[in-house]
């Protein structure tokens, strides 16, 4: 069970990093399929 609540700014920084990275991963997956179709 999580017992430490991070400060708001740190929470936002974590979320921003994670969402950017997830977007990059999704883009790479789509790009691979797109290259395959060319």
């Amino acid at each position, binding site marked *: 069970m999580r*017992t430490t609540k991070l400060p708001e700014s740190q929470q936002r920084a974590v979320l921003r*990093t994670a969402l950017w*990275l997830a977007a*990059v991963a999704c883009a*790479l997956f789509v790009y691979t399929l797109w290259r395959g179709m060319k």
Partner: protein
Amino acid sequence: MATAHHDEHPTGVLRWLTTTNHKDIGTLYLVFALIMLFVGGAMALVIRAELFQPGLQIVQPHFFNQMTTLHALVMIFGAVMPAFTGFANWQIPLMIGAPDMALPRLNNWSFWLLPFAFTLLLSSLFVPGGGPAGGWTLYPPLSVQGSMGTDFTILAIHMMGISSVLGAINVIATILNMRAPGMVLLKMPLFVWTWLITAFLLLAVMPVLAGAVTMLLTDRHFGTHFFDASGGGDPVMFQHVFWFFGHPEVYILILPAFGIASQIIPTFARKPLFGYESMVYATASIAFLSFIVWAHHMFTVGMPLAGELFFMYATMMIAVPTGVKVFNWVATMWKGSLSFETPMLFAIAFVMLFTIGGFSGLMLAIVPADFQYHDTYFVVAHFHYVLVSGAIFAIIAGAYYWLPKWTGHMYNETLGKWHFWLSVIGFNLTFFPQHFLGLAGMPRRIPDYALQFTEFNQWSTVGAFMFGFSQLLFVAVVVKAARGGKKAGARAWEGAEGLEWTVPSPAPYHTFVTPPHIK
């Protein structure tokens, strides 16, 4: 910082299903990896038992092919990668002074995808037509023609890929956002650095593998012809896409091992790591180069000469940063006050044997030589020196090193040393003769062979059983340490440095609730 700290957590199975604690999740990963090591190891022993003599004795060729394919998939995705993720979960927050991973619920999900993925993968053995049998590289056309087991494999790879990408996102978000005040990037322990770079590699290449196997799936069932020459597709394109994932994957399997060795060697040499910054830059260089060498796995497909030369020279360049690392480890030991506890023995064996694997890799990088070595046992010997005496020896070294921190007890040193010597002798007996088999022309992935290869194969099989069964000693050591033994102090090793050695052993359920200040 608002904190409400209490150590209560559910007990029994519910604790492990619902946990978001990095130490619990680290333990889950490590136990899972150990189980998979034995599953993949059992498959290896089926292979070696069949190869003890020429001719077919124990298994049918189709089952043999399933064993070679699944052995690789289980060891890579089930044993080595989860083991390193287990170390990451346990150690990264402790090493950077963070209370937990940045995304604890995501962390739970990343782990719990794995048992389902591997149940799916291994259950493919029981469907009509059996499991995947075309090799772990899943090259078409074999993988397009394979049984339903191949579909199970594709879906299992998707699940493992999602798990790895989520794990990588968590590691990066943790390291970039959760470091204790004063822990600037160039003060981070090498293990944290190697994992940061590994996580970027994972994030860059797992989606590419997912794309490749998705195209395989649509070729199999939805009428596409990505890899079917008769429909305008190209089977060689699969090899390019696969190895664009596959070569960085090799570094995903070895960079955290470099990190572990870089923690252990200074501890038992009682000296700071030689060339810390050059180690960081060498790791980053290796990661960069790993993206521009993929076609050295496919020199024999018929590439233009300019392409072959480019990939040959680019591959050889990797020897430079790798050489920097090996030099730095040796220089760390030079004139150190060395002692040879089990983690150090495994770390030294790692440096020596991994280097042998590196040299045979250089031999394979030479295009005209590779035309001779390609698809022979020389390649099998090469990558086992890199991945067994490289990755797995480092994992074992790390387990011995941090076991006192995890369990609060020192392990049995005598049993540890027995485990080391049996492993190192068994390993070399298994894989060193395979160099000669390959040079003499024995192809890989075959259940039968010509008579002249018999003697080396017999040595290899004896070594494999010795190596395999000696791992039971490792289990005995771990279980004994978990259940009791000599109490370990906060700093379990005299020469150990770093934040993880400032907290008691075993590490409390919650650590660094208030971040430490790094000077």
